[in-house]
């Protein structure tokens, strides 16, 4: 199965956009997941609901919100334009859309992973002089590794398949924002594009299968002992 030049470009762009999007999403998602797993605060349920919003909202709505905020006339978009960092209608905008759409999956996966780590081990680390950062990077994160990998795989798959928010926010510009799902949509809408559409469908199915297999393997074998906390 040989892809055409345009299809190869769309595939490569999809990988780039998904990888960058997930990588940008990860630190923020990890911070939010840790807050949800390890702290109590007023309005936590509302906070959690807001984090999960991109999962529930129609993607077109998310894309439109991104356009309003990050577009050329948006509050942040204007600042970015002034700094020469415009993201609207560019691949970086597509990466932002992918990051936003993958974000809730990462938060959910990481929260579960952090909650599965025995807090008594974190307490033991504290008695050994470790501060919060060392506890997180030295104990919590390594023991959450399987959940983290599973979350990354699912988030990557979600970002790879992202369509609605991306096309609304950054449109369909070949080589810039025409990712694999958008290219597929274009082929489906074009007479004679069926063969190309089938090729891209096959690629999308393979990527999704690999990601879901990785996630399933990690989740099946994952988890440390959840245990009762002392305090």
């Amino acid at each position: 199965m040989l892809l055409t030049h345009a299809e190869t470009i769309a595939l490569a762009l999809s990988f780039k956009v998904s990888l960058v999007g997930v990588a940008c999403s990860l630190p923020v998602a990890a911070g939010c997941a840790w807050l949800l797993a390890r702290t109590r605060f007023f309005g936590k349920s509302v906070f959690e609901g807001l984090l999960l919003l991109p999962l529930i909202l129609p993607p077109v709505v998310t894309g439109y919100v991104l356009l309003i905020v990050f577009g050329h006339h948006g509050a942040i978009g204007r600042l970015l334009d002034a700094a020469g960092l415009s993201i609207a209608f560019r691949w970086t905008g597509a990466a932002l859309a992918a990051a936003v759409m993958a974000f809730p999956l990462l938060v959910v996966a990481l929260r579960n992973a952090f909650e599965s780590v025995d807090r008594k081990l974190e307490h033991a680390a504290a008695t050994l002089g470790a501060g919060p950062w060392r506890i997180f990077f030295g104990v919590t994160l390594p023991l959450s590794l399987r959940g983290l990998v599973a979350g990354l795989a699912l988030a990557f798959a979600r970002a790879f398949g992202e369509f609605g928010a991306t096309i609304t926010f950054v449109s369909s510009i070949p080589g810039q924002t025409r990712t694999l799902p958008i290219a597929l949509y274009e082929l489906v809408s074009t007479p004679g594009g069926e063969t190309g559409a089938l090729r891209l469908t096959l690629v999308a199915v393979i990527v999704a299968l690999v990601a879901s297999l990785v996630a399933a393997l990690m989740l099946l074998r994952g988890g440390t002992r959840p245990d009762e906390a002392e305090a």
Partner: protein
Amino acid sequence: MIALDLALQRGEFSLELALQSTARALALFGPSGCGKTSTLLAIAGLLRPGRGRIAVDGRVLFDRHANIDVPPAQRDLGVVFQDARLFPHLNVRENLRFGMPRGAASRTFDDVVKLLELSALLRRKPGQLSGGQIRRIAIGRALLRQPRALLLDEPLANLHREARAEVLEHLRGLKREFALTTILVSHQPDEVAALADGVARIDDGRLAALEDIETFKASTAMSMALDTPVAHASG
């Protein structure tokens, strides 16, 4: 010198304990559920008393009235938990080094490894160790923190006879070698007799008696228990 005056509520259970002891090694002795471990966790900073004051060797670790609550990481205590709590993703060497202060002499590491006979285990992961080995590593890890005081929570619990004797012997060696202020939680009279200089008997969350070790041995009337495992352990 250990000075405790603390009140702590955990569900239905209430702990109210006030004691002062000059014993180098103080045992908190009593039946299961009497509040020994809760007291130890409060000293370690892992449980927050509702009120009171905790001082070890003159250093105030907690004083509700004066608004002092030193974080666990800064209490400079070596804690050996009943369930050891070795980090499963780290090998023995990494576990041992986890709490070592920066710039600590490598000789210290070598000394502790030698003393606890751990050199053959350094590359193993906790999952590949026996109960006695795990307990020895937990003790080594706490010592390598170079603490002001050592807190031992039932260090011989759930060990079979040989492992118990082996760990007990190492603990006696450490007591001689390091002369650290030690707080030992135990419900085993022979363990207390072998390791402690003073005993706080705790019953239902209250101090029942504070005794020196000779009084404890006499009042416990435990000659049989004393003569068997300890004698065996000390060879």
